[in-house]
């Protein structure tokens, strides 16, 4: 019974993790840029949700689209102003740039919000469900639902909309896409904006479940890495698989080794994956 509870915990967590990672995966897969800012963007979304709840009494779940929109604009601007200038450069350069941008954003957040933890405490609290002996907090279930819905929305966007097809085209062959009339730098900006939007939305959801502080940003970035490598880069279903897998792994390792080792275990898993199977569980597949 305990194992079932742990499994359910892992799945619920995994849903949120997929949402956390999908924006990171999109940017990495399409722009070939590792967005070190990703964790900070999530936390920024969390803070936005927190303050909206504190001062405007907007429910964080309802705030999700707002957070997504705000972060989309920020992401779009960042790509247009900074990252677009180094597209196509060596890994060292793009990585160092996003590192630098993150240092800036992260420290601005510490300056603005201080490092103490904040928590959104919903009132009235949502309580828990008891499903055949398995306890699931309602807020987590709703978060998971939202998270999966958002991931699904992105998937549909990439497959169905014009913008989505343009993004996929640019990923597959930038020059050919240009010849087809696609404005590549705008697509890059939109893609990064989408990634940031997903981060903001995830942050909003995250604020309900966990206490937030700028310091969590690095851990979230780390999880995004692991999920992308686990699930294989370049597909939304891959991120789902990776997210759920990580959620389950963390849940069980918390049971056996204690929660303080979750970061070590994820990172050791990451290194092992990189050493032996960098293409992850699902292998490489382009964004379809």
């Amino acid at each position, binding site marked *: 019974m305990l194992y079932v509870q742990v499994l359910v915990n892992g799945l619920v967590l995994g849903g949120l993790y997929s949402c956390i990672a999908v924006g990171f995966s999109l940017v*990495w897969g399409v722009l*070939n840029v*590792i967005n070190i800012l990703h964790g900070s963007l999530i936390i920024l979304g969390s803070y936005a949700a927190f303050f909206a709840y504190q001062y405007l009494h907007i429910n964080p779940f309802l705030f999700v689209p707002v957070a997504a929109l705000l972060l989309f604009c920020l992401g779009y601007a960042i790509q247009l102003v*900074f990252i*677009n*200038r*180094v*597209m*196509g*450069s*060596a*890994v*060292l*350069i793009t*990585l*160092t*740039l996003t*590192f*630098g*941008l*993150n*240092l*800036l*954003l*992260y*420290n*601005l957040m510490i*300056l603005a919000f201080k490092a103490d933890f904040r928590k959104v405490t919903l009132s009235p609290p949502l309580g828990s469900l008891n499903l055949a002996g398995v306890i699931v907090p309602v807020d987590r279930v709703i978060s998971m639902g939202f998270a999966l819905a958002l991931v699904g929305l992105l998937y549909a966007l990439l497959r169905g909309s014009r913008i989505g097809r343009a993004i996929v085209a640019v990923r597959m062959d930038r020059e050919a896409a*240009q010849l087809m009339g696609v404005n*590549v*730098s705008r697509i*890059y900006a939109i893609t990064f904006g989408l990634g940031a939007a997903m981060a903001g939305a995830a942050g909003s959801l995250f604020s309900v479940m966990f206490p937030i502080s700028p310091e969590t940003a690095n851990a979230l970035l*780390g999880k995004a*890495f692991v999920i992308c*490598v686990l699930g294989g880069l370049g597909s939304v279903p891959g991120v789902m698989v990776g997210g759920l897998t990580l959620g389950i792994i963390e849940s069980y390792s918390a049971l056996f080794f204690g929660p303080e*080792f979750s*970061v*070590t275990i994820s*990172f*050791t898993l*990451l*290194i092992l994956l*990189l*050493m032996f199977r*960098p293409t992850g569980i699902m292998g490489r597949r382009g964004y379809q």
Partner: protein
Amino acid sequence: MMRVLAFAAAVVLVLLPALADNYVLRVATTMLMYSALALGWNFIGGFAGYPSFATAAFFGLGAYASGVLQTMGVPMPAAWALGGAIVALFAAALGRAILHLRGHYFAIASLVVAEVLREITNSATDLTGGGMGLNLPVLSLDVTNQARLFYYAMFIAAAVALATTAFVAHNRLGFGLRCIQQNEDAAIMLGINTLRYKVVAFVLSAVFPGVCGGIYASWVNYIDPTDVYDVLLSVKPIVMVLLGGVGTVMGGVYGAILFLLMEELVWRNLLQFHAGLLGIIVVCLVLFLPNGLRGAGWAKPWWRRRTEEAAP
């Protein structure tokens, strides 16, 4: 002309402890440490072109290896040397494991190693003191002589790093690494055992930070995991080499001097936002000074291949 300047600089450096006060000596010691770190990174990141973020891992491991050895009674210089050897062995093994990865995958793997080492160090409380840190045995020397001792220790580390860089740059190893950086597949077809060359470069990029970590630990007498495995220790050397010229002999030194000057003059007073300002510097550097200070602005950045254009 350059030779005369270089000789003069060397003389000044050697005589500095007799000329300067402890504060200047401290800054100079930090400058020498930064030089060693930057020169170290240059082997793998500059010559071989592999974006390593593992410097913090090597520094931290060296600090703790040497520190723990000293708490067990090993004399300081031996501890430094042994610490360096341990780091070198670790780098050789790690290199074999991750140097077949390219680009982002290699960068991530190297970045994550420091995190894992930090967590392991944190948990091995009996050995390392865990999160509470490690206290190193205090030297029975007065303050001024201690300052001089650590100055000379870092000086030797930096000097050896520089000499090794110059040596490698002009011999087969350096040539081979350059070929690997330019086009690894073509390099293999020319008969270069690329894995072996990369591992050597990786070990070189580890041993200098490792020894510096050991010296640093003794210098400050107290280390903790967050301090010595700090990711900034991986990022700063990269910034320094970018400033001074990637893949050159003196690039690490120039970059370290410049970086330190900026750090001391500008940031010392902005304790709160120190890292944020570093972020701004990094962004400006990458966007506006792609060749570092040597080719400011005009030439195409070294990392733009001939036909590669930026996004339109």
